[in-house]
């Protein structure tokens, strides 16, 4: 079955290469371009080899090229660790395999690993549109396997055309769907992953990070992809209350805000349920971090999440797939009526040698205002009245970032305001911390859910006040109320002419939302709920497995029936008529024996029929029509009529009568 290299014909090679390239396409797009070029070059070259009948390169050259390609990969990814590097490696190895694609086994290997590539792409992106990728990729891979199979069995007939192969492959794919869906619904899901993933930056996109220095969120504003979607059991909160809390940052070294050990490692106190609680379900897009987003202050939350003292909700494992969780939040809770000394120290500490002008202004204000609240109001007022501008296009800040921003630049966005404001507060000895997360979101009227995009990323400040505990203050709101009222989009530009495009996108997002809810969010929990709906509550994992096996068996039986049932009526009407007659004869116990020719059969059974002579005559006509010249249409019709009308009746058999 192994053939020499030059003899692998173009057809199967082209199919295999096409299946591989389609499966690898999203991977290649995410890879450094140079690797994509290498993969395409190798594939193109292999096609040329098959076309021109060139020889494949020697083992040494192959090894050398493969090592070079892997080295290139290692250099571009800074190592061979991580999912992207792993799938990139797989793509490169398959492309390198092109150099020694010389046997059927190799072709099959490439085609089947293409299926693996398709599945692994969904670790990165499983949006609705990728369904097309799934079906397209599987279709081509199956087509390639069909084409390879034609090469395997030495057939006398000519290989089929590409369209016929594609059609066959589509039939296979469609007929696989019932069983695949049955398995998909019933296969027991893991409630806990077996192993976690290392934190990894997603494809150059960045979600919120766990530190903040002014200027770092800017690239998020350009990212219009959804961060999460939230469905509310009751009314959604008003736009000014839609602060989705993410990482809370305490420590400031003059440039960067970071999380602090103590508050993020200590358990939060229990929040009692209140009267104005929000109950909502969040569908979080994968962002490779551990934290989940919630409104202030979570009363209840998913089982695998924990809440830290500063009300950051984190999960044990990074969010690598679409994750759905339900939260109940009490907005009226007082966070920390008394502030412990250690935390107070943490929340007022500032690097001594930075931002002298801000410090000076803060100490002036401190002298003027006894009351913290009055001081804060004054600063907000100052921001509002002085010529501060909200803009994404601004300059980077230097060593005295707060000074430069508050007194010189005066143009920036949430991070600039939050950072400078928090520095001012701390300089005035008011405990302050920065909270990053998302603010606002687009209320999808049609879908009844809140869509929060990455461009809704936001940073605000919380100050600790006697009596009301940690209190949210959003300096950005003072400068640009529109940002808070109608979202980042309203200030980030974007012409009115693109209104229809935005409407289209919102509509598409609704589809995506349905997809997320029904397909991607289908997990152990939802499976359990579905089983409860079908009247099978508290089904254990084993029970689920038994149920799956049962349904699997049923579907396979149905498939077997569909595939194996007598088809397929004959294409020849004369033959159909004959077969009907044979069936009728068989019912009377006069069927033909195995391997008996029609004539021999007819001669054998004629004497047992009431009208044996006519049957013999009919059989002769049939043989003439089918095996001789095919006769004209009138003769054929006459035979069909005669066969249909022939009365199958046993002759009276005296012998049998006697023996009874």
């Amino acid at each position: 079955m192994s053939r020499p290299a030059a003899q692998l014909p173009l057809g199967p090679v082209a199919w295999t290469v096409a299946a591989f390239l389609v499966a690898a396409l999203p991977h290649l797009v995410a890879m450094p371009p140079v690797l994509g070029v290498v993969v395409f070059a190798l594939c193109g070259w292999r096609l040329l080899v098959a076309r021109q009948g060139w020889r494949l390169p020697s083992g040494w050259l192959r090894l050398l090229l493969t090592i070079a390609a892997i080295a290139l990969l290692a250099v571009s990814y800074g190592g061979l660790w991580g999912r992207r590097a792993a799938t990139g490696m797989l793509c490169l190895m398959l492309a390198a395999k092109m150099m020694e694609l010389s046997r059927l086994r190799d072709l099959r290997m490439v085609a089947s690993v293409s299926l693996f590539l398709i599945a692994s792409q969904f670790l990165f992106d499983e949006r609705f549109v990728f369904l097309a990728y799934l079906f397209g990729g599987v279709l081509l891979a199956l087509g390639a396997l069909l084409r390879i199979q034609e090469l395997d069995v030495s057939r006398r007939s000519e290989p089929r055309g590409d369209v016929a192969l594609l059609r066959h492959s589509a039939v296979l794919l469609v007929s696989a769907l019932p069983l695949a869906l049955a398995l998909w619904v019933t296969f027991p899901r893991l409630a806990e992953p077996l192993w976690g993933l290392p934190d990894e930056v997603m494809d150059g996109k960045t979600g919120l990070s766990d530190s903040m220095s002014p200027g770092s969120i800017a690239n998020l504003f350009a990212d219009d992809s959804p961060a999460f979607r939230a469905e509310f059991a009751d009314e959604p909160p008003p736009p000014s209350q839609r602060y989705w809390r993410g990482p809370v940052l305490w420590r400031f070294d003059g440039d960067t805000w970071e999380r602090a050990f103590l508050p993020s490692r200590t358990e939060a106190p229990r929040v009692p349920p209140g009267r104005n609680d929000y109950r909502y379900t969040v569908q979080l897009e994968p962002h490779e971090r551990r934290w989940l987003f919630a409104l202030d202050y979570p009363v209840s939350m998913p089982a695998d999440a924990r809440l830290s003292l500063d009300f950051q909700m984190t999960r044990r494992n990074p969010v690598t797939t679409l994750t759905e969780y339900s939260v109940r939040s009490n907005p009226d809770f007082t966070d920390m009526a008394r502030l412990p000394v250690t935390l107070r120290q943490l929340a007022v500490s500032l690097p001594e040698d930075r931002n002298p002008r801000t410090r000076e202004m803060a100490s002036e204000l401190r002298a003027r205002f006894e009351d913290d609240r009055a001081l804060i109001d004054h600063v907000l007022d100052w921001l509002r009245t002085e010529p501060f501008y909200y803009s994404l296009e601004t300059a980077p800040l230097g060593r005295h970032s707060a000074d430069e921003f508050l007194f010189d630049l005066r143009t920036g966005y949430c991070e600039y305001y939050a950072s400078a404001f928090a520095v001012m507060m701390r300089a005035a000895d008011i405990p302050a911390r920065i909270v990053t997360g998302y603010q606002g979101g687009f209320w999808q009227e049609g879908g009844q859910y809140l869509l929060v995009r990455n461009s809704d990323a936001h940073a605000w400040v919380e100050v600790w006040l006697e009596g009301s505990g940690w209190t949210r203050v959003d300096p950005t709101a003072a400068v640009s109320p529109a940002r808070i009222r109608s979202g980042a989009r309203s200030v980030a530009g974007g012409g009115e002419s693109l209104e229809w495009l935005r409407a289209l996108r919102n509509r598409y997002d609704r589809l995506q939302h349905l997809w997320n809810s029904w397909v991607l969010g289908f997990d152990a929990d939802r499976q359990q709920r579905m089983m409860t709906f079908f009247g099978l509550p508290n089904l254990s994992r084993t029970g689920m497995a038994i149920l799956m096996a049962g349904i699997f068996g049923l579907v396979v039986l149905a498939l077997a029936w569909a595939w194996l049932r007598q088809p397929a009526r004959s294409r020849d009407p004369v033959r159909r008529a004959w077969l009907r007659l044979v069936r009728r004869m068989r019912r009377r116990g006069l069927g033909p024996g195995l391997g008996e020719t029609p004539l021999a059969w007819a001669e054998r059974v004629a004497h047992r029929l009431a009208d044996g002579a006519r049957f013999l005559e009919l059989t002769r006509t049939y043989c003439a029509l089918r095996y001789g010249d095919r006769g004209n249409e009138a003769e054929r019709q006459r035979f069909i009529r005669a066969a249909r009308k022939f009365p199958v009746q046993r002759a009276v058999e005296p012998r049998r009568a006697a023996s009874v």
Partner: protein
Amino acid sequence: MAEATGSRSGTRRPNLLDRWLRRRTRLDLPLTLAYRRIFILPTRFGWMLGVLMGAMLIGSLNFNNNLGLLTTFIVAATAVNSMLLAFRNLDGLQLRHGKARPVHAGEPVEWRMAAINESARDRTGLQLDAGEAATGFDVPAESTREVSVRLPDRHRGWHRPGRLRIQTTQPLGLFRAWSWIEPTSPFLVWPKPASGPPPLPEGGDDRQGQRSQALEEGEDFHSLREWREGDPLHRIAWKASQRHQTLLSRQFRRERSREVFLSLERAPGRDLEERISIVTAWILRAEQDKRPWILEIGAKRLGPDISERHKHECLRALAEL
């Protein structure tokens, strides 16, 4: 009659399997491939894809990646379908008329049978596997095809083709469905002719010695010899005599006079096998030379004759020794 070899030469399968197979089904032709006769197992590629599917399953399950799972299950469902389709490709196929033309030992045996597809579906990518050689064939809907396969070389005598396999890995090469057949109708392998046999024995049979010694008159010109007294005048080859300066007369011989007597006992050769193969070669030579021959094996005497049937009888007698 030589013992017909039941199982495939070379590797003997465990008897357990043989016994089980025989108890389970009839393996002789004619038969219709059906449920109890058809076995299915994954091919090597099938196992490989299975392992790959396992990896896909665990990976997707771990990250609760629903599209990854869907892909995995589509592949798995395709595999299940491909198993059913492989089965369907054999199910209902009728096999009949297993036979082979006799050949000499050492020559390849072409064993043939008829494959009949009565269903309205084409059956493609079938294979008749005889261990060392296999033949691929298709049987279109409602038609019959003759399939032949090369069997391994056999010793002289009666043989059965042994256990053959009808198999298919359609449509994707993931599963191999197969059926064993063990046709009982034997075929004959003639002895192998010796490669450099001695010339045909002239004479040797006492009863006929006189006749074969003396050249008999006939119509066919044979040779020239020096004229002897008693040669009739019309026999003198005048032209040749003139060239050779001596009188030459033409010799005629009749075909009948060239009858050979082949005796197994008297054939040269160290052992029986060698003698058999020399006699076989003689028979073929005699046939080629168009000389009738008589074959004597022990007390049995065949011929004289020169017909095809006679040859077959002789070769068969030798093969069956």
